[in-house]
């Protein structure tokens, strides 16, 4: 069989435009008539379509959550503010002193901003650190029970959260998150958010965004990204409309638990962040590899 693509140098270009949907309507109709009439052309077109399908199957599709996670991590490492939407009360809970907040609000001078942390702030940081450590311990126990021991490097430690953001006002957190989602946060029955934090010690790892919460006395991870339902082991995911929901859902369904694996959960516990992308997005969840 002669190599048709060499005999007709423009054929591949036309197929390329046709498969990319870039042919003008008249040209498209004409090309489709040719396709129907010329078996060689039809075979070549099919081969190219198979090639495209194969490549698209091979290259992972759902990277939107990863993109947002990488963005947030990059901001953190590069010194840009990772969280811009904490309310004043949340900032207080985060250990930020009133004087510092007021100073920031009134655009004080650099000299005033360099005032060392107050004793109150230090105390708040210690408390928050201890809370994170306690959560880490109980968290590790939870997953040790259900999934077997985790490597120590994967466990959350107090020093792995930066900045340490502890928030005791669960309702307020829920409202903040709901306002970003544009819909009520779907927590498991009896669930509440108890912690919001970001890991800073995994410079080369894809990060996950999540909220550690409680459900029926158990700690769970809420993933604020795509639609899914609560799992038998207590993890839950809330819904967020996005163009990628279907693709993500299909990826989710390929996983054993139906949602995500716990192996990566603790190691990638991180913060949620709202992104001002064209489609407002709270990216989240577990991006483990």
């Amino acid at each position, binding site marked *: 069989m002669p190599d048709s*693509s060499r005999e007709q140098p423009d054929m*591949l*270009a036309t197929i*390329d435009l046709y498969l*990319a949907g*870039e042919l003008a309507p008249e040209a498209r109709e004409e090309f489709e008539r040719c396709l129907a009439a010329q078996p060689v052309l039809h075979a070549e077109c099919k*081969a*190219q379509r*198979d*090639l*495209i399908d*194969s*490549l*698209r*199957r*091979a*290259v*992972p599709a759902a*990277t*939107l959550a*990863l*993109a*947002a996670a*990488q*963005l947030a*991590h*990059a*901001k953190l*490492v*590069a*010194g*840009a503010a990772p969280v811009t939407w904490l309310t004043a009360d949340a900032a207080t809970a985060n250990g930020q002193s009133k004087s510092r907040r007021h100073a920031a609000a009134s655009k004080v001078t650099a000299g005033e901003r360099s005032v060392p942390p107050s004793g109150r702030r230090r105390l708040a940081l210690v408390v928050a650190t201890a809370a994170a450590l306690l959560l880490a311990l109980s968290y590790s126990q939870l997953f040790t029970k259900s999934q077997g021991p985790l490597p120590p490097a994967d466990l959350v430690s107090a020093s792995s959260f930066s900045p340490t953001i502890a928030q005791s006002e669960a309702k307020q957190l829920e409202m903040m998150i709901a306002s970003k989602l544009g819909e009520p946060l779907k927590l498991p029955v009896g669930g509440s958010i108890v912690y919001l934090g970001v890991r800073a010690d995994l410079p*080369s790892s*894809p990060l996950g965004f999540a909220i550690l919460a409680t459900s029926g006395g158990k700690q769970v991870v809420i993933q604020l990204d795509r639609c899914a339902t609560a799992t038998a082991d207590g993890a839950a995911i809330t819904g967020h409309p996005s163009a990628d929901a279907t693709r993500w859902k299909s*990826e989710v369904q*390929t*996983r054993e638990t139906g949602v995500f694996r716990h192996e990566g959960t603790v190691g990638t516990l991180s913060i949620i962040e709202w*992104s*001002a*992308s*064209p489609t407002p*997005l709270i990216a989240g969840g577990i991006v483990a*590899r």
Partner: protein
Amino acid sequence: MAHHPPLVQPDFSVEFLRHHRALWLVALSVVANTADADDVVQEAAIIALRKFDTFAAGTSFRAWMGEIVRNVARNRRRQVHREIRRFGQPADAHAIDLPGLVTARSPIDALGTLRAMQEAFDDRVLASLLDLDDTARACVLLRLVEGLDYGQISQILSIPEGTAMSHVFRSRRVLAAALTGSSLT
């Protein structure tokens, strides 16, 4: 002369998310490993944020970021090669990894075709893809997977449109020939 308002930090987020997929494919085409591609884009984002004030407003973010990604990816590849020379190939080394997309699928697809045949075909496509050079591979991925037009590919890879087009056409022939020789006859 038209005045372009300077881009500010929030614009970086929007642009980064908009072009992330293409940037990731550029990284993948150089490092040929999805995990490394993740790391490359992550590192590139940090670098880009740190020097975002040097980005000239009104120019192409895609081109600017694409160059950073390519540089980081090449450094990454050099680093990996150095490590391989020093320590040897790791036991779990693989060229392009495809997490979860193959192993978790049903053996029968919606049309009742045995997936093994499809996977063998996909494997051959990927193997052939690895035979291409970086730029050709990037052109193929950006055109066939991401669906960018040649102008966009030209921007992100800093090559002329005609070069991008000829890379895609030539690579398509190479890939098709490799596949035709084995299964599509």
